[in-house]
């Protein structure tokens, strides 16, 4: 036991604290917590733990307004590394989404790869086996050379990590918009399954229990990554390259298997992965949760670089590491498992009753801080930022739809739409991901709006999706965020699932910018409203501010990751047309509304228009009707209307089956709005003609209209006019993005 009882290093200066990203008031607060001036190690620790990335200091006030309770919720939001939802049958589902925007902006391959690695670690540190990976990506326009470089690197990074780690990447979304030119978004989500009673908590207690560091050796990579994520991206950001971590999916695969195996020994008190702020974050969060302290000997940490200083070890974000607290006397069983997998497992300290974290280097006390003072909900600061309505709202309100002439050749418009990067097939991207490993993904041979993944050893399946049309959020943060939640729920319902929970990744601009903060506040309010309506509590997630470059903030992008449950695979509904002659219906109301659509934005060049039609109650009723129709077996396919409008929706249902369709537009409505508008709360379904009267009886109460029929050949026919055959459409749709990115 080291004997030095007071920290030795010289006090840090205010200037050093400011350089590390702390505010002067925060430096004063640290002094009052410690009752003395902090040394450099301590200031460094506070600077990362109190960064936005770890402390949520500028967002937590609003995050607390989100619904975080529900009868299925097994842990409260924010209590563990990820949300845990009861899906019945003795199984729990653990899921979370997280951003890795800034690292990916400057080192796309490693930035994206470690984003994937980090989110999977959050899942298996709780004892769950990840079974699905999703992502949500935003880039600048594809004709920009930097975009091509970013897309190639980020996609390769996601594939590299996920494919080797062996968890399928089975759903996601990709948008291209010039506001993301400097600052792309890379949000990665992982979904895992755990048996009830086999979860592990990120806690630490029991004086004398040993603390182990497990996994990769510690290097200087990623030092200060959390602080880096909490500043605007600039031209100089590339100089921060050491802030980007380097991933090793093979090490993580071994770590996964070993961690799941070691849980079975019953020797584990608590476990937490090391992500942002590495040893500092894991030791402080576990200790704070378990209301204990720790003594940590930094000189015992396995290093991959010589001569690392204490603060470098404390802040290193080297990947594939875990902190594990073990029951004293059972170290042997734990060691045996990690030995089997050839993984470092080294005791670096022990649990103490005194609720302080004491870090030693060769018997010298190099940092001594109260655990609670570092963490969110403890001593970390909480701020309320000012906000004001964005000036650009005036331009949005000024939009007049009548100013847009109705084009003569709608077929040409449709053909162009099908090839826009935001609508065209993302095949060039998703074929680089192993989407089928773990033999659970049912999308390959029967696509649906949300990805449906079976759970081996159970009748149940999960439906998972990520959604956010950020242009809608830009136009109306409150309504746009509601739409993101609604679309996620609609995708799950259209796939035959029941939505059970949400994880969110809130990508916004600089919180000190009142207009960016206005977007944040109103998006969170809208999200809360919708999540309450759909009974999908927010189980956790991540806030990413400072997403902006010299040209301004990105679109406010509150990505929704949603999980739904299918009690049986029998309930699964595909989006593909099934049989020639089937009737095609629109469930929901046709509307003369093309606000904010891809058509209006990309083809008519309107940058500012209001969010499309959306009413929460109407949407909720529509989803109830859809679930009922699927439950009664009265429809054969369901596909929700989203980007590209009704026509693109039907085109997708047709292309995935090879069956064409004919479509009749209603009189008295702008045909471009009918075909390409993106008004919400609409689903295209196909119905066996023999069940026409049953369908019409079951759908009663919800507006619906007959659109046409599934064709017996591959022809697309609109109002009696041939628009050509599917192979031509499919070739254009499938090759457009590849051509744009590789040109």
């Amino acid at each position, binding site marked *: 036991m080291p004997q030095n009882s007071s920290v030795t290093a010289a006090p840090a200066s205010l200037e050093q604290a400011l350089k590390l990203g702390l505010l002067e008031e925060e430096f004063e607060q640290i002094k009052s917590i410690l009752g003395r001036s902090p040394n450099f190690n301590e200031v460094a620790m506070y600077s990362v733990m109190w960064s936005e990335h770890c402390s949520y200091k500028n967002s937590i006030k609003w995050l607390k307004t989100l619904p975080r309770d529900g009868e299925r919720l097994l842990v409260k939001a924010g209590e563990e590394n990820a949300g845990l939802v009861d899906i019945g049958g003795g199984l729990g589902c653990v899921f979370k989404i997280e951003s890795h925007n800034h690292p990916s902006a400057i080192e796309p391959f490693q930035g994206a790869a470690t984003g994937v690695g980090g989110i999977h670690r959050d899942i298996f540190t709780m004892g769950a086996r990840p079974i699905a990976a999703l992502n949500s990506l935003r880039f600048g326009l594809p004709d920009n050379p930097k975009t091509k470089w970013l897309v190639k690197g980020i996609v390769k990074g996601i594939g590299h990590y996920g*494919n080797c780690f*062996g968890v399928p990447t089975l759903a996601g979304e990709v948008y291209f918009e010039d506001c993301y030119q400097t600052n792309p978004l890379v949000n990665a989500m992982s979904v895992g399954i755990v048996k009830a009673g086999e979860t592990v908590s990120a806690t630490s207690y029991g004086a004398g229990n040993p603390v182990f560091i497990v996994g990769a050796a510690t290097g200087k990579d990623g030092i200060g990554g959390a602080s880096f994520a909490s500043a605007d991206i600039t031209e100089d950001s590339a100089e921060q390259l050491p802030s980007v971590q380097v991933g090793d999916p093979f090490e993580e*695969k071994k770590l996964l298997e070993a961690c799941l195996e070691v849980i079975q020994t019953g020797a584990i008190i608590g476990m937490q992965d090391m992500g942002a702020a590495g040893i500092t974050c894991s030791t402080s969060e576990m200790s704070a949760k378990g209301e204990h302290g720790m003594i940590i000997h930094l000189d015992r940490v396995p290093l991959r670089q010589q001569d690392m200083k204490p603060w470098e070890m404390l802040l290193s974000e080297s990947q594939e590491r875990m902190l594990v607290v073990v029951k004293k006397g059972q170290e042997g069983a734990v060691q045996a498992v990690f030995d089997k*997998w050839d993984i470092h497992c080294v005791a670096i300290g022990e649990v103490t009753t005194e609720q302080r974290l004491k870090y030693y280097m060769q018997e010298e006390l190099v940092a001594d801080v109260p655990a609670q003072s570092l963490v969110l909900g403890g001593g970390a600061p909480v701020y309320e930022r000012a906000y004001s309505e964005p000036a650009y709202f005036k331009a949005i309100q000024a939009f007049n739809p009548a100013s847009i002439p109705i084009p003569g050749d709608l077929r040409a418009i449709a053909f162009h739409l099908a090839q826009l990067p935001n609508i065209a097939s993302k095949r060039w991207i998703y074929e680089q991901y192993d989407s089928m*490993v773990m*033999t659970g993904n049912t999308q*390959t041979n029967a696509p649906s709006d949300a990805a449906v993944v*079976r759970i081996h050893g159970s009748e149940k399946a999960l439906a998972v999706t990520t959604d956010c049309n950020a242009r809608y959020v830009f136009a109306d943060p409150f309504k746009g965020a509601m739409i993101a939640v609604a679309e996620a729920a609609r995708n799950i319902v259209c796939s035959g699932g029941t939505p059970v929970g949400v994880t969110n990744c809130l990508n916004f601009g600089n919180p000190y910018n009142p207009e960016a903060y206005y977007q944040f506040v109103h998006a969170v309010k809208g999200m809360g409203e919708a999540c309450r309506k759909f009974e999908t509590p927010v189980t956790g997630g991540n806030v990413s501010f400072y997403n902006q470059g010299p040209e301004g903030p990105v679109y406010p992008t509150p990505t929704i990751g949603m999980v739904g449950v299918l009690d049986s695979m029998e309930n699964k509904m595909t989006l593909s047309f099934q049989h020639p002659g089937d009737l095609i219906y629109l469930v929901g109301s046709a509307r003369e509304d093309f606000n904010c659509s891809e058509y209006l934005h990309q083809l008519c060049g309107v940058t500012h228009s209001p969010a499309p039609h959306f009413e929460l109650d109407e949407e909720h009723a529509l989803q109830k009707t859809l679930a009922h129709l699927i439950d009664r077996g009265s429809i054969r396919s369901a596909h929700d209307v989203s980007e590209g409008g009704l026509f693109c929706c039907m085109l997708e249902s047709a292309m995935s089956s090879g069956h064409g369709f004919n479509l009749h537009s209603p009189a008295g409505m702008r045909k471009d709005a009918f075909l390409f508008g993106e008004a919400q709360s609409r689903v295209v379904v196909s119905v066996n003609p023999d069940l026409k009267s049953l369908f019409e009886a079951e759908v009663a109460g919800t507006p619906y209209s007959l659109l046409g029929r599934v064709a017996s050949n591959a022809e697309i026919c609109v109002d009696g006019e041939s628009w050509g055959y599917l192979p031509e459409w499919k070739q254009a749709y499938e090759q457009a993005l590849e051509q744009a990115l590789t040109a």
Partner: protein
Amino acid sequence: MKFGIIVFPGSNCDRDMEHALRDDLEQDVVMLWHKDRDLSAFDVDDCLVLPGGFSYGDYLRCGALARFSPMMEQVINFAGRGGKVLGICNGFQILCESGLLPGVLLQNDHQKFVCKNVFLKSEHTDNIIGDNVGARVLQIPVAHGEGRYHADTKTMQSLRENRQIIFRYCNQEGEVHLSSNPNGATDNIAGICNVRRNVYGMMPHPERATSEVLGNMDGRSILEAFTYMN
């Protein structure tokens, strides 16, 4: 008859193979750890499977390190005794690296990982798989970054003469074209066997196509082929 599945560190299709064989084909399956060396429970009616994944992280070269594991020594002996061995994807790479099958698997010609359904056709019936699957076109997924089969001219000639090519990539109609080749493999080769016809390697993943739930059962006939007694 039973199957043994070798688990290397970094294998990630070991469980998929276990599910396919045990749940879908209702076979006996034993999982074998790469550090062990006991195969005394296996005789020549049994089949050892080297599953897909990234053994040893694919460091050095795909499959290059796995061949030196204690269990692989035993697998080589087992094959020498006439025991049946099947390598899928990374397992195929290991079989080539360890000399149980000729040739190598190089990086895909487009230099990207590729995961999608492809079509395969068996050409000969005088091998275990071909005998069972016949001339039917099968739809089986591939998922690899380094699956481009390559061998020198002499080896290629002997593969043809000995009818060792078990699968070629083709289109839905069974026509073998360059356009249906997902990785640039020589002669559209998707899988081969040894001269003795007890060691088989293929890049596509039959274990991903054995279940009704996934909507594709085309992989069953490939795996079933190994369940019949000699």
